[in-house]
């Protein structure tokens, strides 16, 4: 079976509009989270990382002068434009696929005050807009599987290449910070009123952030990005336990990691770094610590990147994987921002400062509502 790689990539975020500038900001310890008090979105103040609208307009206007794109579409198109340009791949080709990862898409179009018509909230409309903008020959595949969507989209791309349907798949993920999302998480009492602190004993919940990210998944190893990684194995297993709370035993995540390790033919000793989900809710972080311990991964350096952007929903798994690939390329572990004192009952090795270290292989995990979990193992490509 041919090898499959994650190659060119882009991140549109509060920390910058390309992957290198975002990773440099993380290297310097910068966070994109700021306090926001906007009662049109939420009655109480909240922390979030928002994409600067004038910056987005400026970047988008270099791509097209066409109007009638939503903010999310502008974010996703700007990101994907950069990735496609870097790759040099012609997308009007039957062997080139497009996967879109989002939880809520243009959900703000449901709001009667939103200038766009309600039908823009259909995810297939979002997919059509992006497909048409770039002229992809194939219809997009949209994955909406809660908070694992971004990392699952990478696994799906690999699977399409394995089935010989596509040679190259572009993956673009994005979600917005909206009243819809914040009011919902707030009704769960899951939102923190301070910057989130994944795995910390004083953690008080999540921040929601917005990002668009994109990458090329390809079987062609002739022209890969410097930071390219090989996708060794993946798994996406359900907890079969609860629709809005993670399993107390981490069963679905445990099985996802097992599935990925078996396919990748690696053991816990081969994993140099874990990019975990780490939402900073009590139950999620605890569940992850349990699942990692069940796999004897407690000594492997681990971080959550939620302290930099908050939880970016359908983009999170994708952006965190991209940063993981850069982490391997830079041979540098980045700190789990917000962490001070261990706040989970099982030992895990949280990264507390930027640390140069030889890195070869990393595990990316995510978990979400509906009991879903995904784990994917990546290995540095040696050029």
């Amino acid at each position: 079976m041919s090898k499959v790689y994650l190659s060119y990539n882009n991140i549109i975020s509060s920390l910058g509009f390309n992957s290198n500038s975002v990773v440099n900001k993380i290297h310097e310890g910068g966070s994109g989270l700021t306090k926001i008090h906007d009662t049109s979105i939420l009655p109480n103040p909240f922390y979030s990382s928002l994409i600067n609208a004038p910056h987005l307009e400026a970047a988008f206007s270099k791509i097209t002068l066409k109007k009638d794109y939503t903010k999310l579409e502008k974010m996703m198109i700007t990101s994907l434009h950069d990735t496609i340009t870097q790759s040099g791949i012609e997308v009007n080709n039957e062997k080139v696929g497009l996967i879109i990862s989002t939880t809520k898409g243009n959900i703000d179009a449901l709001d009667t005050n939103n200038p766009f018509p309600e039908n823009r909230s259909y995810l297939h409309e979002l997919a059509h807009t992006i497909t048409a903008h770039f002229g992809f020959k194939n219809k997009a595949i949209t994955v909406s599987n809660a908070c694992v969507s971004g990392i699952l989209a990478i696994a799906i791309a690999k699977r399409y290449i394995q089935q010989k349907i596509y040679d190259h798949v572009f993956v673009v993920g994005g979600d917005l910070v909206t009243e819809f999302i914040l009011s919902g998480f707030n009704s769960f009492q899951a939102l923190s009123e301070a910057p989130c602190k994944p795995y910390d004993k004083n953690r008080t919940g999540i921040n929601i952030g917005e990002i668009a990210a994109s990458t090329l998944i390809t079987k062609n190893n002739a022209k890969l990005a410097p930071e390219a990684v090989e996708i060794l194995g993946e798994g996406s297993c359900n907890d079969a336990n609860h629709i809005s709370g993670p399993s107390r035993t981490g069963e679905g995540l445990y099985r996802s990691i097992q599935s990925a390790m078996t396919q990748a033919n690696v053991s816990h000793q081969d994993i140099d770094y874990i990019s975990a989900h780490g939402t900073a809710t009590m139950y999620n972080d605890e569940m992850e610590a349990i699942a990692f311990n069940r796999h004897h991964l407690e000594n492997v350096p681990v971080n959550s990147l939620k302290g930099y952007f908050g939880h970016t929903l359908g983009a999170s798994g994708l952006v965190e994987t991209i940063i993981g690939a850069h982490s391997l390329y830079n041979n540098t572990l980045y700190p789990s921002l917000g962490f001070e004192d261990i706040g989970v009952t099982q030992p895990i090795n949280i990264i507390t400062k930027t640390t140069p270290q030889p890195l070869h292989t990393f595990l990316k995990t995510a978990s979400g509502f509906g009991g879903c979990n995904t784990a994917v193992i990546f290995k540095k490509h040696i050029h």
Partner: protein
Amino acid sequence: MHDNKSYISSFCRIKNNHVTLNGDTVFSKEGTYSEFIKSAYKNLDIKYPKFFKMDRLSKLAFIAANVVLNHENVTPEQEENIAIVFSNKASSLDSDRTHQTSIQNKENYYPSPAVFVYTLPNICIGEISIKYKLYSENSFFIFDNFNAKHLLTYANNLLDTKKADKVLCGWVEYDGNNYDALLYLVGNKGKTEHNTTEINTLYNS
């Protein structure tokens, strides 16, 4: 490239106030969707009180999955590796609209976690996984139309890579007053070949 031959062993369709199993009607009742699906639940003797807390999309997927999995003698007591691959057009927009109504007016603001949790299409997969103890591969996809080729490709990958022994595939759509579910089970046994022609035949019948 698909290595081993796979088959569709059974299928359930729910639309137009009818529940059918392998083409035969197992339940029908005139009336609204709410009346119909509640009667189907009682008539099929499912006995699972969590059903009443589910949103309309989850109820639809849950009943269709029950009809197929019961027919296949799948039980929570005997664990099986059955993946779930669902798709639709409207995602969770039915519950999304309910949540939006609860926040639209600041003078009448009542967002609720019981509604919000259903504003994701894959929650219905979670409901089925909990009932049948399926700790298996699962994913929800959105397309503008029924996409047999996608369902075939993805199910074949899960079978070929031994991620799953069987795959419960299909389409579960609830939008406005329109509903339609087609779920079918794919594995290494059955009479119907697993290919796009057969899948489309099921959908178009």
